[in-house]
């Protein structure tokens, strides 16, 4: 398959945060107008990283405002019901605003403030990143514009109201499939136009360097905590870490500290949607026809769902946060070098996992996170009882109640949905 040969061997510019490359993937593929801003961002981020005061303020807010550390919870009834490995939940759903997204939004907002940028823009899919961004903008008194696909505004309307209540200007995007990809296009158009005054808080480990590195760094706290918690609560590392992968920010955060520990299996779960054909899913790493191929979308070189002419394909997932045609470049590298495995869970499997987790543990996961739960439910019975699986429960499901109640017919409930345990 054609790739950008020799891409690693290019003229060096200021690259203070790593190289922007993850194997062959990553890089910076943007209109020239954005380059000065990306270079400024890279430099400012490097300076912030080296400044103990920045880290201290971030850590203080993560603890007292966001609610870190999050618990590592043994899902006893779920595990016993499945009859195999123990499933542990890393409870990112308990964070302020209801998902892991605030780890990154807070970090980038602090950086924006440090850079003197008063206007913040962001894209959002499920609305969790938009809510997190609107929240930190309210916290710091920054102007906030959120781009959101109109299809996503419809299916995640509660989050639209939350963002507006927080003072954000939510702008609907109707181009393309009116989902996350189109929201990113529109946010990038805004950024190109207002680049001198505006900070773009990108919400996943995507886009041009330094975003994939920076976003991952802000979510590393997930696996830093988890590793310590496993040591304290279990006495050793988990055997498997499972996380859902849209752009891949919660997954890279949950994987990162375990990367050197090669006996820890890392599994990313993509949206299998309603079938394997192109357009029916968002499983970029799916093998064979209907799966993704290396390409460039929205500033980075990674796997992209596309047709043979290089036009980016439509995607489908019941969960707005996984409904995206490309994937963070670090995941592309981990896929190719085999350090992480990627699989998918279908819409139906995710919906079923939502119901099972609600009824066995009293925890209502976001539909995104339910994809990871669904895979853990498949995996656990195949492993011995002494094995431990960590599922990164990246968000809570309140935002999805509309979809869940429709899909599971909770309104006029059939017998099987009526509370039988």
């Amino acid at each position, binding site marked *: 398959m054609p790739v950008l040969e020799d891409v690693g061997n290019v*003229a060096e510019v200021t690259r203070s945060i790593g190289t922007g490359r993850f194997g062959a993937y990553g890089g910076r593929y943007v209109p020239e*107008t954005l380059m*000065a801003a990306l270079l400024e961002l890279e430099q400012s981020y490097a300076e912030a990283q080296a400044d103990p005061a920045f880290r201290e303020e971030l850590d203080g807010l993560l603890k007292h405002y966001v609610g870190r550390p999050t618990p590592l919870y043994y899902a006893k009834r779920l595990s016993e019901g499945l009859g195999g490995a123990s499933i542990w939940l890393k409870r990112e759903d308990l964070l302020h605003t209801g998902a892991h997204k605030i780890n990154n939004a807070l970090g980038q907002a602090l950086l924006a403030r440090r850079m003197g940028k008063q206007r913040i823009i962001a894209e959002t899919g499920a609305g969790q990143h938009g809510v997190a961004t609107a929240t930190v903008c309210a916290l710091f008194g920054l102007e906030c514009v959120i781009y959101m696909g109109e299809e996503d505004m419809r299916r995640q309307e509660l989050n639209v109201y939350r963002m507006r209540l927080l003072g954000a200007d939510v702008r609907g995007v109707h181009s393309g499939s009116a989902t996350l990809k189109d929201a*990113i296009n529109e946010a990038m158009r805004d950024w*190109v136009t207002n680049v001198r005054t505006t900070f773009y808080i990108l919400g996943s480990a995507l886009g041009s360097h330094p975003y994939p590195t920076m976003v991952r760094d802000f979510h590393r706290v997930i696996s830093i905590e988890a590793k310590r918690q496993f040591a304290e609560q279990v006495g050793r590392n988990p055997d498997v870490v499972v996380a859902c992968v849209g752009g891949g920010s919660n997954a890279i955060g949950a994987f990162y500290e375990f990367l050197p520990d090669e006996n820890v299996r890392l599994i990313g779960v993509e949206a299998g949607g309603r079938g394997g054909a192109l357009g029916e899913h968002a499983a970029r790493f799916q093998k064979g026809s209907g799966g993704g191929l290396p390409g460039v*979308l*929205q500033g980075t070189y990674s796997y992209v769902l596309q047709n043979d002419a*290089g036009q980016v394909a439509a995607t489908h997932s019941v969960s707005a946060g996984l409904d995206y045609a490309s994937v963070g470049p670090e995941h592309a590298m981990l896929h190719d070098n085999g350090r992480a495995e990627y699989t998918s869970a279908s819409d139906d499997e995710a919906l079923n996992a939502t119901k099972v987790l609600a009824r066995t543990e009293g925890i209502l996961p976001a539909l995104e996170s339910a994809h990871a739960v669904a895979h853990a439910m498949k995996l656990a019975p195949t492993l011995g009882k002494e094995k431990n699986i960590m599922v990164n429960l990246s968000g809570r499901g309140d935002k999805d109640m509309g979809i869940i109640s429709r899909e599971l017919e909770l309104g006029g409930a059939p017998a099987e949905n009526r509370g039988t345990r």
Partner: protein
Amino acid sequence: MPINFSTKPGIVVYLTAGDPSLEATYDIALAAIDNGADVLELGVPFSDPLADGPVIQRASERAVGRGVRLSDVLELSRKIREARPGAGIVLFSYLNPVVRTGLKEFCKAAKEHGADGVLLTDMIVEEGAAYIQHMRENGLQPVFLAAPTSPDARLKVIAENSEGFIYAISRVGITGTQDSVESDAEQLVRRLRQFTQKPIAVGFGISNAQHVAAVGQFADAAIIGSAIVSLIEKSEPGMEAEAVGEFVRGLRPKQDSSGVREGSHEPHEANPHSSTGNLKGHGFSRAEKPSQTTGASAPEVA
């Protein structure tokens, strides 16, 4: 070298290939050339044109919807080259369709299909080593974008690596028309001139004879995109080529006849003096001498 701005200012016309159809784009292209366009930018339609404003987004969406692909645009280039050997042809694409084809294969095909140069919207110089190498091996001219936000150090590298011309973006933002050409453009061209004598073409927001004349005061060529794509969108079906021909003819004052090529009509009068008042206050001084290099020979490529 067909990329040659023998008249001053040179005219570069952008067309989204395949909008409203590949056949129509062919007719429109010939009409643009015959009425004074020095260079054609053939835009490869893409599903996610994130640097483009609504007009080119819509054109791109229509063409993608019609199934137009990179190979079709290459074929169109070949036909235009056959019909108008003296015109400059630049293929204008987002990176992904090119990556899907393969950089090396694409550059070879572009040459075989008569293109002179290539502009990849989301390819910056630092990422372009392999691309530039394949371009040079095929005797093609890579055109890079220069932005008002680019620091001097970047402009230098952009100027060194661009061939044919340098595409100076008149203002921060996406493609689309505007009432005036911002003063960003003149300053950017002046900064580029520190590093190069290669032709500099100014694009983004240029939509009429006044803008072209204003750009002609300080740059070698003006690039007209959204205004023409919009005109095509609004034209009666079948009338697009005629409308574009007339529009292009009106972009340049009459005395510019040195660039007449086979089949070209006598350009119509478009009096730039009427625009004088308009230009004041937009950072352009009509007294300013155009910076040299009219007709500067395009740089050699290996």
